[in-house]
């Protein structure tokens, strides 16, 4: 059991983070905390990708300038896979945009309702619906 977990340590961490994020997303009624949960959830996926790009014993995937110049590139050299990093760079930017969008909405909700608690917002909407019958 321990051995199996040890081999898959990164996956264990990723799954724990993912569940923490999802739990925070579901369990809290506070909209800002929900955004925090969402961010943790997304970050766990970033880690999944980054761990995927790791090659044991691999160097950073940058060709040394002097080796190109002297034409002495080592054909057997081992490099990490740069593609997942690039993908995650994009995904991080997307995540930041989503976070900014979500927080902007929370600010607006706070101004419109005077609260960022889900229950209070639902109650305010419900009383409005009773009043207007919408």
């Amino acid at each position: 059991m321990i051995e199996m977990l040890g081999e898959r340590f990164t996956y264990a961490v990723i799954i724990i983070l993912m569940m923490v994020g999802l739990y925070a997303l579901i369990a809290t009624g506070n909209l800002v905390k929900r955004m925090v949960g969402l961010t943790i959830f997304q970050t766990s996926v970033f880690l999944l990708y980054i761990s995927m790009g790791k090659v044991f014993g691999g160097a950073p995937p940058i060709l040394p300038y002097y080796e190109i110049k002297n034409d002495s590139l080592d054909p057997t050299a081992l490099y990490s896979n740069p593609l997942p990093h690039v993908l995650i760079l994009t995904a991080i930017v997307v995540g930041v945009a989503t976070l900014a969008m979500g927080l902007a909405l929370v600010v607006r909700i706070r101004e419109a309702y005077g609260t960022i608690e889900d229950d209070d917002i639902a109650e305010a909407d419900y009383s409005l619906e009773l009043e207007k019958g919408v």
Partner: protein
Amino acid sequence: MGAHLILRVVAKLLIPLIFIFGFYVHFHAKYAPGGAFQAGVILAAAVIVYGLIYGMDAARKAVPPWAARVGMALGAFIFAAVGFVSLIFGENFLDYDVLHPDVEHARGQYLGIILVEIGVLLTVTTVIIAIFYAFAGRSPEITEEEW
């Protein structure tokens, strides 16, 4: 001066250094980790520190909100425009090889990336500043009639 004297003096000293470091991260990215995203955030951080310590009005005077809005549009525009330049030269969208005749050493790719990075730097900096303005610039408490 009065309150927060130390903060103000330290900020005055630090902000130029933050700017220089930001540009260093941007332009040294050819040889070392870095690039427009990181540099943009660092540059925006300088403006945000200025806003936090000297107040929003001072920050708005330094970088007006309309400049932030135009900046983010312009940066994205530069990025897309580089793509359209390749179209005009008859190659596929975003094919930077057309930008420079020296295809063998990929000078065009090099030039294209530099141009794109400038656009990205502009957009990232101004977007972060705009987000800061949008959140920090709101009235701190809700007035009675806004409810």
